[in-house]
Each structure stands twice: as structure tokens, then as C-alpha cells.
């Protein structure tokens, strides 16, 4: 995980649930690429391809609610998304994202100011997000959680623990 994440934003509304992120019929897959082909496809044809033009997702409240399917986080990573910034996350998605190595940030202040296509700059160490000239802060992740993200997810973390 890089300590600075920069990219163009795609913006979603509230309550984007995990059935929208990846429909249940694709849970037979666990690899990023295959899942990404179907990520958000219920929102319309061409949606997965369109999202590949963005690197950061911004969402409203309760992103990732619903099913505990870990593939929601995996599919988002497969699209080439480097981070998700939301007003709030559903707790199962929050854990799964960290365990899958997908950086996520809660920052409700940013939401009204940001638009599709904007560029965000996220500085993990400083706990700051920059949009144009304005800075927003987000709560620092607990050290144990940061460690998992730094290693790219819980599986890699486990590997180091078992050695």
C-alpha cells in the first residue's frame, strides 16, 4: 500500500449494497479480474468498463451494506480502484475491505464538495485528503489494521505470523 493515493473520482449515493457491487451469482469466483468484469453490472450495461476509468470511489452513507460477501471488496480492487472514501461504511464491508487490502476512509465532510472526475490526493500518514486547495481529515486507522493494509490484506498478514 502506497502512503499517498491519487486518482479520479467516481461518486455514488447512499446505501450501495453488496448485491449491487457484486451479484450473488458470481460468488463462485474469488479472483479479482473475473469478479471485476461483473462489478456493479446491475446498474447498467457497460458500468464495469466505465468504472475502470476511475481510481477512487466516493460514496455516501452505509457503503457496502447487506451481505457479508468479501468479494465486494475484491471486485472493487479488480476494477483498478485504489481507495474508497465514504460518509460511512457497513461494518462487514469495512472489515472485508481491510482484510482484502483495499484502503477505505470515512470522511463525511468531503462528500458534498466532490464531483465525478475530480482528482483526490489521500495522504495516509498525515490522515488528510486534498481536493483542489481544500484539505479534509479522516480518523487514523488503528495500528493493527494499518499493518494488515500495508501487507496487502489479512492473508499476507497471516503468512508473516505463521513464519
Amino acid at each position, binding site marked *: 500500500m502506497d502512503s499517498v493515493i491519487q486518482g479520479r473520482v467516481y461518486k455514488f449515493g447512499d446505501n450501495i449494497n453488496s448485491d449491487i457491487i457484486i451479484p450473488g451469482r458470481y460468488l463462485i469466483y474469488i479472483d479479482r479480474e473475473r469478479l471485476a468484469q461483473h462489478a456493479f453490472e446491475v446498474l447498467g450495461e457497460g458500468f464495469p468498463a466505465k468504472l475502470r476509468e476511475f481510481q477512487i470511489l466516493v460514496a455516501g452513507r452505509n457503503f457496502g451494506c447487506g451481505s457479508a460477501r468479501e468479494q465486494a471488496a475484491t471486485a472493487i480492487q479488480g476494477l483498478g480502484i485504489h481507495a474508497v472514501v465514504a460518509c460511512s461504511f457497513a461494518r462487514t464491508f469495512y472489515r472485508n475491505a481491510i482484510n482484502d487490502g483495499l484502503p477505505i476512509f470515512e470522511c463525511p465532510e468531503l462528500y458534498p464538495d466532490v464531483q465525478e472526475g475530480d482528482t483526490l490526493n489521500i495522504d495516509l500518514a498525515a490522515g488528510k485528503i486534498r481536493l483542489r486547495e481544500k484539505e479534509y481529515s479522516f480518523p487514523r486507522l488503528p495500528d493493527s489494521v494499518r499493518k494488515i493494509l500495508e501487507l496487502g490484506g489479512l492473508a499476507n498478514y497471516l503468512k508473516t*505470523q505463521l513464519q
Partner: protein
Amino acid sequence: MPGYTIAEKILAAKSGRSSVRPGEIVDAYPDLVMSHTATWRSVSVMQKVGAKKLYDPDRLAVVLDHIAPAKTEKNAQDQQVSRNFARTNGINKFYDVDAGIAHLVLMEHGHVAPGDLIVGTDSHCTIYGSLGALGTGIGYTEVASVWITGKLWMKVPDSFRISLSGHLRPGVFSKDLMLHLIGSLGADGCGYKSAEFHGESARELSISERMTMTNLAMEMGVKCAFVPPDAKTEQYLRGRLEGSRRYQPVQPDPDAVYEKDLAVDLGGLEPMVACPHEVENTKPIRDVQGTRIDQAFLGSCCNAKYEDLETAARILKGRRVHPNVRLIITPGSKEILLEAAKTGVFQTLLESGGLFTNPGCGACAGDGGILADGEVCLSTANRNFLGRMGSSKAEIYLSSPATLAASAIKGVISDPREFF
């Protein structure tokens, strides 16, 4: 020093602490780790990280419920991996594709007791709170991690106290109570919280109704939900609990600290329906009655228990399902199906025009009974998300089993109260 909530007490006990407060992060050791159809994925994580040994095979439960029996070759192979894993590792709590939905199977077979901490590969693990256990969902990688290390980090949640008073009127059920709550609080109205249902009126509700409540609580974002254990809990557990297993029911202290206090008068509730495509999009029955339905699905861990089937049968007895409606009944478990066969509920539902599928998740997980473009389904499940039951051009409404049965007869969403 103020007292403690149920979640605080259980998390303290499972992390070897004398007490914990909301916001603290603890290393907790679950009593049970449930994995369902996702088991093969956790097995692949174990292989990837090179782990050979389980922390304690007796703490694992594996139930093959979603898409069971296998629909495709890929499903069959995945199930084979799960089955072989259970065999080679001596997992005693292994239930194959005949058993039913993991949540119901584990409770019926006595693997859930008050005070337990249970994690699993399913968001509706919150249902275990109907018996006073802390249940919560995690992903398959984390399940593998708990298999190996025996523990996971957990944040101690704040708690909400929901005090129930009055009595449900005929034709109104705990499903309606929950749809009312989800509609008024929103899909994240209880986000990250532990919800406790209190009051004499909560104690009057059957264990089956409590299961519906703690299951659906997930749809307002809870981490876990509880009905404090009482005599009804004890009665349910009698004869079910494994071997000589003893338990200490965990009760909240009278001076426990709640972030919010909510009160609901059950007597003031009416039948509710969740409209497409979010559970929080709830309306009283009068605002949606008359909506055409093509399929009625009586299924899921939320509302395909014996009592739910019995309620539907009571309404359908001597009546016919509308010719334009397919009534699909997927019992929650084999035990439920057996009971329905014994009491005649099975026959009544069949004779009314219903179709039975094998026990399991069925159409709720996109198995037998999915929808075509433009179709409308009324379902007793817990989610109506876009595309969840097949076509993303189909619509799903959610209701109680009584509303479902009344609507199946009329061919349109209908108020069940005229049948009571």
C-alpha cells in the same frame, strides 16, 4: 460504576477481560465459527497462507446451504472441497446439502447457547441473538484466520435499547415490527450497534418470532442483536443442547449504559411491506395493496421456520393460490419440513397450489425460483436488493408470511387481517 450491556459482557468474557466499554478493541475467541457455502473459499485461504492446523476443530461448523444441492459443476466441485475439508479435519458439526439454512440448522441442533460468541461467513449471524448469543458476520478470509488462530479483533459496540410494550394485533407479526423499525431508522440507523429488545412484550414473543427480529436487525446495520434469554429460551434449548453442555445466560445490568432508548407499542403496528429495491423503503400495507405479483416466495432464514409455514397454511387452508401466481415454499431446514409433514401443514400448502423445494436458501440466494424481466415477487426473506433474485429488471417486495399467503390467494399484495 454503571453496569454493562449484553454485548459488553459477552465480549469481555470471550477476550479474558473483567470488563470492557464501547470503543475498546479486544482480541476475542469465538465459541463457534460458522461457514456455509463459502467454506471452500476459506479452505483456499488456508492453503494460500500455508496453514495446516486448526485452532480447535470443535469450534467449526460447516453447513452447505446456498445453492444446494449443486446446480453447476463448479458448485459441485466447491462443495466437494468443503466436504473433504470437513472430513479430513474431523469437523463434527458438518451438515450437508440436505440439512437446510446454516443459521436455523445450528440453532435446531443445539450448537448455539446464550452467552456464546459466534462469527460466520454470513451477515445474518445476528440471528443467534434470538437465543442470547452474540452473532456477527465476517468474510471468508477472516473465517480462515479464526480457524487458524482462534481469535479476531473486535470493537466493543455501543448498544441501543428497544423497549416493546403492548400486544401485536391479529395478522401483525414481528416481521412487521422490524420493517417498521428499519423504515423509520434507516438501513444504517443501528450501524455498528448492538440492539437489545426489552420489555414484557418481547418476552411474550416466541423464539421463532425472535429469530425473525434478530435476523432482520441486520438490515438496520447492527453488529449484533439480542432478546435477553428467558424461560422461553430455556425451553427451546432443552433437549437440543449438545451433550452435557451447560450455559450461563448473560443478562444486561439494570444500570447498563445505552446510547439510545427507543420504544415501540406493538399494539399500534399494522402489516408492513418493504418496496423495491431497499429494505428501508417500507410502507404500510394500505399504500401498496393491489400491486400485482407473479411469484410469492415463502423462504429464507428470516421467515421459513415452522411457525411461518403454519401461519401461511392457516390462511391457505381450503383456499387456492391465484392462477397467475407461483407460490414457492422453501422450508428453512429439514427439521421444519419434517414437522410440516407431520402436522399436515405440508399437505395444506401443496393442496392450495404451492410448490415445495428442498430446504435451504433457495431463491433468496438466487437458486430455484429466480425472476424474469418485469416480474414482481413478494417474498418473506430479508432483502429486496436490485437483481438479488435473478433479473435486475424484476421487483422484490418483502412481507410477513401472513401477508404473503393472503396476497398469493388474491394475486395482488393484500392485507392479511381479513383472514384473522
